Every structure is written in structure tokens, then in C-alpha cells.
């Protein structure tokens, strides 16, 4: 729908696609990051029996905008001994990596940045740029804490990518598609058609799938939590050990880009979990638009449901951050290699057998 609109204006399918893929940045990522930073401060404050930001706007709602204005005005400090070209490119690379992911995320039936067949595989591929950017930032800063943080982060992300991909494989085996739009369309109807409850096909297999799907969901949630460096897996930027990890030396807008990328990533992984297990943009109970015969309302409702589910998982990430202590490096690797990967493999084999039989 939106694509046709741009196609009529520009009269070129490539330019129309490029504009459409750029849209999520302005209509979604920037407003979401502003909201999520505020939400994080509020959640942490209320969990610690404080009030959090209260002065700017209603309950501090405009606090993040004030902070961004402050960051824009700040002097851009580049350390003397830093590797200047790499130091300047690194935040851009990290931001591109985390923002490219949004091109394949289906926000509603009417809007997906780019409806490619390999949606979920593209998302996994694009996140490789984030790792390269993080390593670049850590190395170019010429600071041992930054480098250590970057190393830890890269090791963590590439280790936890394995359980994530294994879980994604099980979903691909059941549904036979890697297109996130098709995947969301398959889970239409009511919440019992969601993948977490065995998928849309009714039968004995659906009920056998349920426990394995719940295990799958737990594995992918833990490993995506580690991939976005959130507590309890935040050793790359452990404040008490490494100052602030790979972005210690960054200031002003470059710091803001890392920050934006981090919050964009938080939503991206929540969106992937939503699209894979919780019906994507599908409503759990049916649509008001269909009830009243106003079909133009359905895509807007779908957008609402998708954002609501995504923000719920972002909220759970924040909740965990202020509840759990941080893991040690060896514990972190043990969780991934000794528990998550074997369990994910067994799950993959069992689900494969059930699908074949």
C-alpha cells in the first residue's frame, strides 16, 4: 500500500523501495528511542522506590528531548592517540547495522520496510555489522577498557548468535518460510494460532509442539538479551569494571548514536521474538476494523498490536536489568555453550522429527 504510493510519486521501483526502507528510522526508531530512554529511567526509579525524572513535562516525559538537545550542543572530543578515521566511522557502522535490521521487520500488514523472502536471515546477517562496529570503536579508542569491552561484547554476540539461529531454524522447519510477513500472516486469527501455542495448523502436532515452543522462546529470549548486551549479560559495559565498555571515549552526538543503536537493538530483538512466537502484528482477539466494517482501520490496529507487544518485551528487558545481578565472564560462556546450545540442538532434532512424522 505504502509502496504503491511512493511508486506513483517517484515512478521507479528501486527509488520507491529505498524510501520505504528508510521510513522506519523517522516514523519509528527515533520516537521509540526517546520513549524507551524515558521508560528505562522511570522503570529503574520506581523499582528502586524513587520517582525518576519529574521536572520536564508531565512526569518528565520531555526529559529525553532535553537530554538530546544537551548532547547535540556538547563538544565532540576525540582522544589525541585515537585512530581518527576508525573512531569516526565506528558509531556510524554500529548504527547502520542496528538500523538495517528494521528494514525487514513487518510493522503491520500494510507496512514492511522491504518484503524480502529471507527476512529473518537478513536480520541475522545485518547484525554482523554491529559486531564489526563495536570492535572498531573499542580498538580505535586506544583505551584498554574500551578494547576489553569490545572484545567481550564481540565474543558474547557471536556465541549467543548460535542458540538464536538454532531456534530460528526450528521455526523455519515448522512454517517453511523465512519471510517475516508471511510468517505473521500465518499466525492470523486468534492467539491460539500463535507459534508459542503450536502454530496455526490444528492437530495432534500442535499440542506436542507447545512445550518445545515454550523452551524455544525462553532460549531465544535469553540469547537475544545477551546479544543486545543487557543485564544480566552486560559485562561488555560493566560500569564497575570497565567504566562504560567500548563507548567510554565517545562524547556528544557520537555517544548519542551508540545509545540510539542500543535502544533500536532492544526493540529489534523484541520485534523478532514477537514476529516468531507471538503472532507478529496480529491481534490476539480480532479487529475492531473488521467488526465495524472499516477495513482501513485494520493496518493501524496491527501497528498498535505490534508496537504494544514489542514494547512489552522491551519492558521485560528493563525489568530484568533492575532485578538480576551481572554474570561473570566464565558463567556467561558456560550458560551459552553448556546449556543453551545443547538444549536448542535437542529441540531442533525433536521438532524436526515431529514435523517429518
Amino acid at each position, binding site marked *: 500500500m505504502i509502496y504503491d504510493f511512493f511508486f506513483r510519486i517517484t515512478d*521507479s521501483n*528501486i*527509488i520507491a523501495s529505498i524510501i520505504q526502507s528508510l521510513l522506519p528510522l523517522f516514523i519509528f526508531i527515533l520516537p521509540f528511542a526517546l520513549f524507551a530512554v524515558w521508560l528505562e529511567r522511570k522503570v529503574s526509579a520506581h523499582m528502586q522506590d524513587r520517582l525518576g525524572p519529574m521536572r520536564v513535562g508531565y512526569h518528565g516525559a520531555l526529559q529525553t528531548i532535553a537530554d538530546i538537545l544537551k548532547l547535540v550542543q556538547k563538544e565532540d572530543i576525540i582522544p589525541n592517540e585515537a*585512530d581518527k578515521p*576508525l573512531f569516526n566511522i565506528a558509531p556510524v557502522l554500529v548504527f547502520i547495522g542496528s538500523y538495517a535490521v528494521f528494514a525487514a521487520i513487518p510493522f503491520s500488514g500494510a507496512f514492511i520496510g522491504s518484503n*524480502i*523472502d*529471507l527476512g529473518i*536471515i*537478513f536480520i*541475522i*546477517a*545485518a*547484525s*554482523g*555489522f554491529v*559486531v*564489526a562496529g563495536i*570492535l*572498531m570503536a*573499542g*580498538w580505535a579508542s*586506544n583505551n*584498554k577498557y574500551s*578494547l576489553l569491552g*569490545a*572484545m567481550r561484547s*564481540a*565474543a558474547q554476540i*557471536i556465541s549467543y*548468535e548460535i542458540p538464536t539461529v538454532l531456534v530460528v531454524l526450528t521455526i523455519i522447519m515448522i512454517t517453511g518460510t*523465512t519471510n517475516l510477513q508471511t510468517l505473521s500472516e500465518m499466525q492470523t486469527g486468534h492467539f491460539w494460532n500463535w507459534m508459542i501455542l503450536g502454530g496455526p495448523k490444528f492437530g495432534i502436532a500442535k499440542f506436542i509442539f507447545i512445550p518445545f515452543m515454550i523452551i524455544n522462546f525462553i532460549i531465544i529470549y535469553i540469547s537475544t538479551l545477551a546479544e543486545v548486551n543487557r543485564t544480566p549479560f552486560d559485562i561488555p559495559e560493566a560500569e564497575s569494571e570497565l567504566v562504560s565498555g567500548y563507548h567510554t571515549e565517545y562524547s556528544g552526538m557520537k555517544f548519542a548514536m551508540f545509545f540510539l543503536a542500543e535502544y533500536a537493538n532492544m526493540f529489534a530483538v523484541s520485534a523478532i521474538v514477537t514476529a516468531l512466537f507471538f503472532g507478529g502484528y496480529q491481534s490476539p482477539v480480532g479487529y475492531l476494523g473488521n467488526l465495524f466494517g472499516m477495513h482501513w482501520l485494520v493496518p493501524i490496529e496491527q501497528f498498535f498490536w505490534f508496537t504494544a507487544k514489542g514494547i512489552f518485551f522491551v519492558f521485560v528487558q528493563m525489568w530484568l536489568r533492575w532485578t538480576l545481578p551481572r554474570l561473570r565472564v566464565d558463567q556467561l560462556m558456560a550458560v551459552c555453550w553448556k546449556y543453551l546450545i545443547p538444549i536448542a540442538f535437542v529441540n531442533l532434532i525433536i521438532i524436526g522429527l515431529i514435523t517429518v512424522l
Partner: protein
Amino acid sequence: MNVYDLIFYLFAAITILSAFFVVTTRNIVYSAYYLLFTFFGIAGIYVLLGADFIAMVQLIVYVGGILILLLFGVMLTNKITNVDIKSGTIHTVPATLGVALFAGILLASMWNTNWKNVNSDIQAASTQNLGFLLIHQYALVFELLGILLLIALIGAASMARK
């Protein structure tokens, strides 16, 4: 010259320029990052040829895996142990021979391939066909490659243990 051509030349320029810098830069970390752009450009050209699955695998395996491990190794040894790693020219004659042989093979395959240079010839969704071919026609090769990778993994693990 339409937008499609423009995008092709953009990716081609990215690939060739960054590949040139990979071999000419003296700083090994810079080389590694130029390699990132080479892989990115090649992935873009794969997408333009309709081989989107290969493009994604290119990014996952080379950027997400090999390049990161390469950077890891270089950075761990370069900054922490204070050993300067510089790339120099050694073994010029065997290198030239190898490059000439490889270039010959590449040129021969380039001339003998029936390139699809019209937009409508390129299949929109090649992934399903690719999977079908891998499981049916090339099943044996596919399995053998899997076993080869498994052997490499076991070998790496046993070497790391010593």
C-alpha cells in the same frame, strides 16, 4: 543507464576500491576493515544477480564470522602484547604464479558462463530452488561438505586443547 545500473556500478566500485586498499594498506587492522566493505560490495552484487540467499550467507559467514575472528586475533595480539604486525612482500614469484593461475580460472569461468543481464531473466525467489537442488540433485556433495566442516571443527577443537 537506469537506477539498476547505477547501483551495480556503486557496488562494483565499493568492491574493487576496497579490495585494492586491502592489499596496499600497511596497517593490518585497516586491511581487515577494508575487507568488510569488499564483502559488503560482493553481497550487493549477489543480490543484483538474484542470488539473495548467497548474499545473506556471504554476510553471515564472512562478515559475521570470519572477519570478526580475524579482527579478534589481530586486535588481541596487536595492542595488548605490543607486537607490531605489518604486512610485507615476501615470496613474490610463487604469489604471482598463484594469482595468475587463479585469475586464469576466474576469467575462463567468466567467459563460459551464460550471464543473465536482463532484469526479467533473473528469478525473483531463488532460495526455494536452491534448497531443492541441494537436497535432491546435489545431496551427496552437500552431505560430504557437512562432514568436511565437522572434521575441521573437531580438528580445531583438538588442536586448541593441546
